[in-house]
Every structure is written in C-alpha cells, then in structure tokens.
C-alpha cells in the first residue's frame, strides 16, 4: 500500500497561482508582510496567460483621456454598458479603471519598458483603441513581463513554491486556514497553513473539444483547468456566472491557435480581415477612425461579419497583414513579439518560411471558452474577499467583472494583497485546518491501482460531454443529461498514473469534472437567454425582470444552494 507523502508549510499569506494577478499579489503582500508564499503549478517566470508576453493593457490615462474628452466615470460607464452589458461588479470595475495606471507605473518600476521616443503623446506612451470608446490601451514591451514580475516577487521577499498545483483549501470554523497542493514533480501533497489565502489560478480551459483536434492546441494556457474554482466550490465558496460561455472563444489562425486579436490588436496597423473574394470585412484601425462607440453598431465597421461571410458561401476568412510601410510592419512585429504566444508564432513563421508580407493567415472560430466575457468565479466584495472569510480572489479567478483582463489581474491582485495583509496582521497563529482528506484518498487510490483508465480518456470524455450538451443545443434537458454523463464518468473512471506528471493530469480531470458540473447546474437554473454568452433553446428570450442578476451557486452543509445577487 503506497501513501502519498505530505509536506507541511506555514505562512501568513499564501498566493495560489503565479500569473499576472498572483505575482502582483505576492509582491504587494511581501511588501506588507514578511511571511508570504507564492505557489505556482509550473514556474511563474513563464506561466499563465502572459507567460510568453503581454503587449497591451487598458487603463485610464488622465493626461490623454482628459484631453480627448473622456472622464474616468464615462470610461467606466462605457465598460458597464458595452463590454459587460450592465451585468458587472461596478464598484470593483471602478477600482480597476481608477488604479490600472498606478499598477502600470509599478511595472515600469519593476523594469518593463512603457515609453517610446516615436510617440508624441504625453508620457511618450503608445496607446491603442481596444474595447473602450477612447484610446486607452497601452502598447508596451511585455514579452518578458513574467520574468520581470518574478524577479520583483523574489526581491520583495516572497518565497516561491513552484511546480505545485493548488487543488484544495483548508478551513477551520468556517474561515480559511490554508491551501493544499500537489507537487507536479515531487509527487507530494503540500499542506500550506496560512492566515489568508489569495486565489489567482485563472480560467477553466480544456472543457470543450479543441478546434484543431489536439488537446493542448488551445488559445489560453492548457495548464489552467479551473483548479482554484473547483477547490473553492468544494470549500463552500459561492461562485457566480459559471453558466456563461463565449461561443466561439475567438477567431484565430487555423489551426495554430494564436491570440493577440488577429487581425486587430497586436496586428495593427497592417492587419485586415478579408473573405475568400478578397473583400475587406474588418478594416484597419486607423481607417475605422477614433470615434468609437463600442458594441452599439455592427460588429464590424463594414457591416459584415466573419460568420456571416462563411454562411453566405464566401469563406474562408483570412487575416492579411501584408500592407503598410516598413515602419508599420516593424511596429506590428514588435507588438506580436511582445504578446502572449507571439514569440512562438514568429519563430514558427520563420521556420516554415511564412511571411506576413507575402502570406495571409486563415482564420476560424475556435472552440468556446469560459472567457473574460463570461467572468465566472467567486463573488468578491470591495476588498476582493470571497464568501469564505480570509479567502480572496483576483484577476480571471474572480467572478463578475467581464473584460477586466490584465488590468483586473494587476489591480485586484494588489488590492487582495492589501486586504490579506490586513487580515494576517490582526490574526493569531494559523489554525490547523481540514480539507485535504478527499484529495489524499484520491491520490492514494491512483497510486495503488495497476491498470485502469489513462487521464487522456477522461479528458476526451469531458470534451465530448461539454461540447455536446453545453454549446449550441443548450436546454434544461440537455444539461441534465450532461450532468448524468459527467457523474457517470466521475463514478466509473478508474484513473491510473505512472508518475507525478500523470497524476497531476488525473487531478485536473477531477477539477474539470467539478467545474463542468457547476456549469451545467447553473445552466439549468438560469431560465433565460442572455446575449452572446448564454443562449438556451428552451428559453430563447432575455428575461431582465427575473434574471438581470449574478446567479450564485454554493455548497452549504453538503447541499446545493442557488442565490440571485443584484449587480
């Protein structure tokens, strides 16, 4: 009989997840407290959504926005109406918008380059339009932002526990007592006692069949499997918005999925979207102009959409970045090089003799994503605290702030750290909480099993169930069948693992199934349709009278409880 080894750690503040939010949280926490641990499933130097870069971040830049006639309040209102369709944690959104620029200045202090001599804007900033009706997205040199942040984490004095996947929480008397992780390389259970825990493990990826057919060929990091959300749910934390889903997740290059907003975003100024006849469907930014009214007009400036062109028999769609002066081309390549997955893209382009000047890139709508538009996660108050005292959440982990993205990660990470430090300062010694028992039993079963189901089979089954029952044919009866199928899988699978790497994947399957079940249950509960992120066949109409709310779901004494919250 093999038993998984358990290693104990103790700290004041534990940050679970070393992405943008987690790094900023660890830095601020370590400035305020000398006993901080940052736990990352891989290595914060290159982990998370911005692992290989981040070339853009929105904020309120007073010196530019005021001149352009946009107040902070107007920008927040624009986001509320046009990005979040009204359903948003307005107070947190305001905080993000108001402090994003301060955190950008922190990034500069840590060593990121944000000013450029070719800009005549105040502060020599390069500013682009992204999702708001003003030029408020900074283009900066963020290829190595995670290395820069990791250096700042170490300098601030936080300890880094890498290659540990946080997958459970410790509680005592209804309050947080720590986190539990599994060592993806050492194969140990790590019990981390803490007076406060900040969750920043990000989105739930890998739930839907990947568009190119390969499990790890997805846009957002495949290492993000909703570990934090599953752990929080099991610990009784209330999650909101879990039913929302972006369909498709994005339009991206077929089949090498890349981000950066092809053909917009990082691919400006040269990029346009064209149909198979060469007609421009999405114009270049500077041809669209600056007077933007987000979301109120047609999806694309031409009045045509990529999907519409496909359905009209004029597919496929391409991104064409071949136009522009040499300087414009250099600007675009600079942005792509600094955006997540961009360095790999440019490397592959060169290796396979592809050239943006000579080749256009085919675009397709990729698999659905629990995205920034969906904003599913724990409900947080104005201090980033969840419904479990002492447990905080930031960035994509937190629920209720659509489109918060990178600025949400930096600002909420900072705020959660301040809140956690305040709590830790007022608390006595860390309590010895409970919560790892089921995890230990799950690991031991697998360690002692010879023969059984490889995790890849469970992954394929999850992809099938979630894709079949929760995308286009969504209804109460379909969701109920999806739930039956996930529960059958959970009860029937006998996972096997040859080493800690494979056992990590088995634990991911456990969390994906947990998140899938939460999603399907909330899907049944929300009896309406809501914009692009939630379409039901049996309730095709939006019902604001009953459902203009965050739908919360939590476990209370082993029983499910749903609750509506006014935003």
């Amino acid at each position, binding site marked *: 009989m093999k038993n998984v080894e358990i290693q104990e750690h103790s700290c004041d503040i534990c940050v679970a997840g070393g992405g943008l939010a987690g790094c900023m949280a660890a830095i601020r926490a370590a400035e305020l407290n000398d006993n901080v641990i940052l736990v990352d499933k891989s290595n914060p*130097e290159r982990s998370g959504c911005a692992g290989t870069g981040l070339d853009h971040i929105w904020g309120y830049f007073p010196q530019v926005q005021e001149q352009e006639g946009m107040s902070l309040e107007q920008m927040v209102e624009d986001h509320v109406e046009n990005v979040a369709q009204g359903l948003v944690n307005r107070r947190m959104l305001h905080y993000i918008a108001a402090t994003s620029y301060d955190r950008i200045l922190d990034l500069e202090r840590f060593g990121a380059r944000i000013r450029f001599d070719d800009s005549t804007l105040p502060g020599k900033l390069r500013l682009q339009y992204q999702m708001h009706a003003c030029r408020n997205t900074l*283009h900066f040199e963020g290829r190595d932002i995670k290395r820069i942040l990791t250096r700042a984490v170490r300098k601030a004095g936080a300890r880094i526990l890498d*290659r540990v996947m946080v997958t459970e929480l410790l509680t005592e008397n209804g309050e947080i007592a720590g986190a539990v992780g599994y060592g993806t390389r050492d194969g140990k259970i790590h019990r981390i006692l803490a007076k406060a825990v900040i969750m920043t493990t990000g989105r739930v990826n890998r739930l839907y069949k990947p568009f190119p057919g390969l499990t790890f060929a997805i846009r957002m990091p495949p290492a993000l499997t909703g570990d934090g959300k599953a752990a929080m749910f099991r610990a009784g934390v209330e999650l909101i918005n879990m039913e929302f889903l*972006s369909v498709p997740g994005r339009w991206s290059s077929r089949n090498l999925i890349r981000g950066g907003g092809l053909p917009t975003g990082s691919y400006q100024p040269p990029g346009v979207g064209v149909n198979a006849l060469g007609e421009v469907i999405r114009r270049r930014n*500077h041809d669209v102009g600056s007077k933007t009214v987000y979301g109120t007009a*047609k999806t694309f400036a031409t009045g045509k959409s990529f999907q519409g062109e496909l359905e009209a028999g004029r597919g496929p769609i391409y991104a*064409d970045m071949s136009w522009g002066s040499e300087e414009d081309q250099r600007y675009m390549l600079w942005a792509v090089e600094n955006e997540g997955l961009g360095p790999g893209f440019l490397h592959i382009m060169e290796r396979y003799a592809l050239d943006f000047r000579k080749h256009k890139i085919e675009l397709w709508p990729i698999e659905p994503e629990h995205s920034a538009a969906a904003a599913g996660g724990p409900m947080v108050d104005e201090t980033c605290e969840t419904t479990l005292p002492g447990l905080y959440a930031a960035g994509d982990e937190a629920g209720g702030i659509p489109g918060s993205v990178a600025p949400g990660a930096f600002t909420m990470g900072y705020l959660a750290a301040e809140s956690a430090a305040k709590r830790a300062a007022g608390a006595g010694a860390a309590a010895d909480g409970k919560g790892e028992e089921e995890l230990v039993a799950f690991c031991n079963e697998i360690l002692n099993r010879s023969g059984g189901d490889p995790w890849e089979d469970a992954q394929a089954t999850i992809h099938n169930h979630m894709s079949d029952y929760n995308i286009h044919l969504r209804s109460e009866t379909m969701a109920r069948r999806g739930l039956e199928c996930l529960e059958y899988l959970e009860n029937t699978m006998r996972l096997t693992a040859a080493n800690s790497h494979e056992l990590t994947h088995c634990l991911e399957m456990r969390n994906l199934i947990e998140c899938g079940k939460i999603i399907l249950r909330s899907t049944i509960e929300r009896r309406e349709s809501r914009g692009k992120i939630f379409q039901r066949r049996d309730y095709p109409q939006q019902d604001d009278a009953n459902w203009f709310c965050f739908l919360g779901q939590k476990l209370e004494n082993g029983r499910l409880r749903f609750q509506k919250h006014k935003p």
Partner: protein
Amino acid sequence: MPPVIDKDLCNYCGICYNICPQDVFIFDKKQKQVPAIAYPQECWYCGACVVDCPRGAVSLNLPLPLHIVPSPALYGPPGPEDSEALKRAADFSRSIERNSSKDGTGSGNNSGQAEDGL
C-alpha cells in the same frame, strides 16, 4: 517532436526544463545530457523555451494538424498614392493628433468580442 534541441548547441543548463509551463521536458542537472522531450503531445507551442534558451538551441516543430497552409497575401508594400493612409497608420497610436474617421462610419476598433487577447 514539437521542441527540438540542437545537441551541438545545448550546454545542459536546464533553463527550458525549468521554465516550460507544460513540463514537457525531462532533465537531470547531474548528468551532462540534452533534456529529453518526454511529453511532446503536451506542448502548447508558446515558444518560452525558444525565447529563453541562452544558446538558441531550441526550435519548434509543428505536428501536421497545426501547419499553416500558405496562402498568398493581397497587398504587399503600398504605392505612393497611399502616403496619407501610411501617415495615419504610423500616427494612430503615437500621435497627439485626434484621429478621425475618413467617412464617419467608424463603429469601433474592437471586433465585437468583449475580450481581446487576455
């Protein structure tokens, strides 16, 4: 094999193994050996190993389903008649000048999807 390591260039520093977010490499610091690619099918093609290798020894090979099938571009370098558009493009994110829509029909620089990149 998605990441490929040039044996002649590798200096066994282990950085690729240390930073890979997908943990596809196996490496033992004590043995002077090129890291092995233990889980090639789990590569995300993010390029972290390519960027961080101090010797430029790592490159990415795409599996067949991820190949980009070449398709000729439509534009190429613009002609002299595009000089005004080129200036607007260059100034767009870097100039104090208020950019304005040429025909006033601009409806947004976004793609209608609430998230962009991250």
